[in-house]
């Protein structure tokens, strides 16, 4: 099972991961709009996070399934 993965926020229009921000350490807040550096479209930050969260949930589910299958096999061997 993988313990960690990295999810990138991608522009909802062109899938780019580059955005225009006032400075490198700028912290976005709920309700903010952020401009894509590639296509210039304005992205709703909350929507970007929702899409990323959905991907994270799918990834967690896959890892849990793999782990459960592994443990099930171990138990099968133990109780044979």
């Amino acid at each position, binding site marked *: 099972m993988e313990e960690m993965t990295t999810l990138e*926020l991608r522009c909802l*229009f062109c899938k780019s991961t*580059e955005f225009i*921000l006032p400075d490198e350490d*700028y912290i976005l807040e709920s309700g903010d*709009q952020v401009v894509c550096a590639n296509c210039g479209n304005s992205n709703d930050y909350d929507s970007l*996070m929702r*899409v990323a969260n959905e991907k994270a949930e799918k990834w967690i589910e896959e890892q849990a399934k793999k782990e459960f299958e592994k443990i099930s096999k171990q138990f099968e061997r133990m109780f044979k």
Partner: protein
Amino acid sequence: MSKLNRDEIINLLLVHMNSEIESQGVPIKNVVFNFTTEESESFIADNGLSLEDIHKAINICISRGYISGHKYNWLSLTTEGQGRAISIEQAEFKKPVLGSTVHIGTLNNHGATQIGDGNTFNFEAVFNEIVNRLDSAEASVEEIKEAKSLLGKFIEHPVTNTVFGASLGILFKQLGM
């Protein structure tokens, strides 16, 4: 053929679908759309579009992940599609974050992020407490081991393991299995 370009038609389509969903107050997966005839969705005529325009836009949206489902009468909006629709609507009245200087880079999440809804963190906390109490119980090593084994069998049961779902791996680790 409509005078609008391809992206404008896609935007119109996604905004229309999202508006319909939000007006009904239900999750995006609960609403399906039918674009098989011009009469099936009035917005086609209202925006001077043809069925051909809409079908081309739908094909693009399906391949990009904005829409899912069966062409063209059982279609749903995806989270990405809804995100684009919301971004388009918000852009009309909300200014994006920009400063006098410009930095181009990736976005990093600086705070804690809740993943999922109604997840089973509570189960893990409870089992963590049970395992800790077993470890510190006044009993022999063999008795503690037996108690943990019985707990493991309880989690493993087909009925209970569907309750614990994705937390199963973590719970087994806590029991040292």
